[in-house]
């Protein structure tokens, strides 16, 4: 009797020992993440305290302390880039939420041919940003562009959307919002599926107006997904690079330069690696704060479920 129990226990122990510890499961992934993401990040924290150029690897870096950071936060151009980025995020994300919501209401119900039509709407978010950017820059061309062709009969003159700072920014916003509204739609479709049908039926029986039904039944159910969409799109728009690079390249002047394109210019045009790293770290800090809120929103959603 005892012998069997002992044998059983030792068998179990052997099995435990044979299965690798938890750390072994996560270690390979964490090693890759460390090598490609974390170490370079630590390196860039180090480099941000130096004057260092990536095109002169042999020249010893010169220690500046917080010099790069002080330079950046006292540079009005940098603030302008943060303000540009913020303005673009504000416009683009609000449009995405509105258009995404309208699309979600349209596609929430099943109808014949839904899958095919939805493919048309989903395509933009799956396109290469470079292709989208380059094509939109053709649309915005004053001579050959379709925007100019539409405007010309009314004004009699060619129209250059990329000519003034504000219209250039709105042109970027249009491309970004066009690409990513379907993403918001996807999230909201999932949210709408969570609306309890019996509540909708009850509201219908009570002859509640559509507006009232929306605010009392539908909105509470999609609020948390809406928050996820808002946060995720804000973070992603903050990182916007490809569209700016291909459509305006920061112009006219520096009016549509975002934080990402500024880092690119500093690092790969001016090769001021130290300064670029410092600016990169400032934006990582912004993103960590935003991600913290996003993470909290996910956890709240899980707890509610």
């Amino acid at each position: 009797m005892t012998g069997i129990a002992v044998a059983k226990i030792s068998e179990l122990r052997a099995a435990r020992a044979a299965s690798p510890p938890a750390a072994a499961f996560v270690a390979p992934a964490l090693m890759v993440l460390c090598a490609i993401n974390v170490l370079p990040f630590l390196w860039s924290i180090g480099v941000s305290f130096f004057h260092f150029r990536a095109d002169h690897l042999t020249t010893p870096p010169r220690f500046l302390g917080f010099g790069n950071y002080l330079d950046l936060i006292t540079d009005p151009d940098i603030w302008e880039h943060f303000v540009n980025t913020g303005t673009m995020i504000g416009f683009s994300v609000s449009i995405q939420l509105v258009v995404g919501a309208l699309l979600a209401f349209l596609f929430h119900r099943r109808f014949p041919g839904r899958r095919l039509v939805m493919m048309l709407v989903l395509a933009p978010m799956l396109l290469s940003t470079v292709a989208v950017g380059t094509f939109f820059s053709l649309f915005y061309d004053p001579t050959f562009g379709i925007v100019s062709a539409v405007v010309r009969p009314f004004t009699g003159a060619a129209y250059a959307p990329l000519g003034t700072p504000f219209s250039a920014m709105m042109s970027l916003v249009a491309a970004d919002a066009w690409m990513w509204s379907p993403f918001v739609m996807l999230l909201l479709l999932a949210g709408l599926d969570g609306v309890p049908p019996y509540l909708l039926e009850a509201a219908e029986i009570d002859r509640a107006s559509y507006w009232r039904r929306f605010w009392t039944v539908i909105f509470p159910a999609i609020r948390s997904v809406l928050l996820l969409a808002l946060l995720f799109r804000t973070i992603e728009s903050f990182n916007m690079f490809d569209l700016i690079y291909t459509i305006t390249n920061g112009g006219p002047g520096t009016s549509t330069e975002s934080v990402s394109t500024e880092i690119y210019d500093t690092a790969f045009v001016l090769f001021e690696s130290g300064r670029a790293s410092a600016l990169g770290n400032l934006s990582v800090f912004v993103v960590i704060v935003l991600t913290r809120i996003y993470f909290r929103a996910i956890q709240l959603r899980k707890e509610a479920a």
Partner: protein
Amino acid sequence: MRDEESTPVRNQAGLGRTLVAAVVGLVYFFPVIWMILAAFKTRADALATPPKLFFTPTLEHFWASFRRVSTDGAQVFDTGLDRNFANSIFISLASVALALALGALAAYGFARLRIVGRDHFMFYILVLRMVPPITAIVPLYVLFRVTGLGGGYIAIILVYTAFNLPFVIWMLRSFLDELHQPIEEAARLDGSSELKILWRICLPQMQAGIAATAIIAFVFTWNDFLFSLLLTSVDTRTVPVAMTRVVGADVGVDWGVFAAIGTIYLLPVLLIAFFLQSQLLRGASFGTVPR
């Protein structure tokens, strides 16, 4: 995936809805249609003012995107686009496969095993996905120059693997969280190793989830521009970077060729948009919004 038949009748809309949606869909899709049309237009038609909607189609740009004839017609250049396509396919597939393998192990670790500070790990893994890619590229560029890996396949595949890993870990973990665990407990009591439980019990149950994860990671990698722009060489360059070279080529902006490349590159992604809609839905939320 939701069964169309099980949907309550009140959720069905008629042909009227189809009509409205079709109009909205076509308007929304218009920029893509315009690109596809441009791929079939002659150079004169493409740049006509006002823009032409009807024209005689030509396939010349599709040929020209692979073989370019010099302006005097005497020489034929190989544009290397076939190589770029092979690179895009190989690099995307390799990095997604690697990310899935490493990510599945890690996701299992975080979902089932005791790991101290699990939530902190999950949070910082998410942060790694969210930071602006450009901030990672500045140091990586130097790292690869110093180690001599720059421009090779290993470097770019590792970078995409690391870029996809956070997403893969989050997705697969959410699928693991939904599995029915008593079966695994039983296997564990019978002495199965954790690795065997993951391989034999968990993974077979989450094939749809793995497919969704793989597809979305593939689309990310397939379309990425920035990493490829700065971390690949002529031999390892992918299509999105090659496309921008067409725009800046010596012959000026050749919209037809650009559109032709864009159209070919778009095809796999359109198929995904048609056949895998519900998987995209799951992926949009990093797996956090279950169907």
